[in-house]
C-alpha cells in the first residue's frame, strides 16, 4: 500500500515539464500568459520539432527572453511573432500561415476528399444505371429456356 501511494505520488508530480526557467518568468501574470502562448507557437530552430516553450536549447531560451522583453516593451502578440518571422521565415511558426505558397498544404486534403466523394458518387450512379439495364434482360426468352433445358439434358 505504501509503495502504491508512493508510485501514485510520483506519477502525480510527473506532469509534462516545460523548459521555462524561473528566472525567465515575468512578474506580470497576464504578460507571462501571453508570452507562454506565443512561445508555444514558435519553433525551436535547434531541435526543430519542439516549440521554444518546451525546448532546453540555449537559442530557444534566448528567444523566450526576447519574446518577453518585447511584450514588456509594449509590443502586441502579432508584432512579436512578426519580428521572429522576419528573421527566420514562416518555418519558425509551428502552424503554417494560409497563403499562396501553402495553399496545397491547407486545401489539399479537402480537395482530395471532395474528388473522392465525387468519384464515389459517379461510381454508384453508373452502377445503378447498369443494374437497371441488366434487370430488363434477366429473364430468359422461351427460345433460350428450351436451349438451356436441352443442354442440361445432354449433360446427364
Amino acid at each position, binding site marked *: 500500500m505504501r509503495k502504491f501511494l508512493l508510485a501514485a505520488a510520483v506519477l502525480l508530480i510527473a506532469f509534462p515539464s516545460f523548459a521555462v526557467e524561473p528566472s525567465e518568468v515575468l512578474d506580470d501574470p497576464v504578460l507571462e500568459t501571453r508570452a507562454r502562448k506565443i512561445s508555444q507557437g514558435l519553433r525551436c*530552430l535547434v531541435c526543430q520539432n519542439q516549440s521554444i516553450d518546451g525546448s532546453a536549447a540555449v537559442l530557444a531560451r534566448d*528567444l523566450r527572453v526576447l519574446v518577453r522583453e518585447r511584450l514588456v516593451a509594449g509590443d502586441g502578440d502579432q508584432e512579436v511573432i512578426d519580428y521572429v518571422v522576419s528573421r527566420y*521565415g514562416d518555418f519558425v511558426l509551428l502552424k503554417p500561415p494560409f497563403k499562396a505558397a501553402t495553399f496545397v498544404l491547407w486545401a489539399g486534403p479537402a480537395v482530395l476528399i471532395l474528388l473522392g466523394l465525387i468519384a464515389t458518387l459517379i461510381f454508384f450512379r453508373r452502377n445503378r444505371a447498369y443494374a437497371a439495364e441488366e434487370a430488363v434482360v434477366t429473364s430468359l426468352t422461351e427460345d433460350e429456356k428450351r436451349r438451356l433445358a436441352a443442354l442440361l439434358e445432354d449433360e446427364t
Partner: protein
Amino acid sequence: MQKRLLFLLPLAVFLVIAFYFARGLQLDPRKLPNMLDGKQVPAFALPPILDRDDYGFASTDLPGGVSLVNIWGSWCVACRIEHPFLMQLKERNQVPIHGIDWREKTPEEGPAWLEKFGDPYALVGDDPVSKAAIAFGVTGAPETFLVDQKGVVRHKQVGPIDAKIWDEILWPLIETLRRNGSAG
C-alpha cells in the same frame, strides 16, 4: 480506351505525390531561407570582448565597404574547423572579416580562443544572449553574412567557409559587388 486511361489516373496521382514526397525527404530542414537577403543589416551594437576593450562591433560600422560578418563561438567545433581558413583570408587581406562572438559561457572563453589560435577579425562584438544572432536569424555557428558597401546583406553562408566555397561563391559575389558599387 478512355475508360482504361481513367483507371490509370489514381496511379498517376500517386506517382506525382510520391515524387514530391521523395524530393521532400532529400531537403535539409536545417537549411532556412536567408530572410535578410537584400535588406539592410539589422541594427545591433555589441560591447567588446575582453582584451579588445577599446571598441565592440555595431551595425553602423558596416556601410563603407564590402565585409563579412562571421558568427562564431569558442564552443563551436565547426568554427574551429573554419578558423584556419579565416586566418588565411586575413593574410590575403581581400576583405575585412568582423566577428560576433556568440553565447560564450564566460566572457573569458572567446578571447582565450582567439589568443590561442589567432585572431582573424577586424572588429569583434560580444553577444552572450543572442541579441545580434537572433536579429540576423542565426540558428547555428558558424554562419557568415556578406554585407555590401551600403550595409545591405547580400548572402548568408551556413557552416564553415573553405577554399571551395570562397572561390566558387563568396569571392565572385564580392568582386561583383565591388564592380557595381563605388567604394570598397
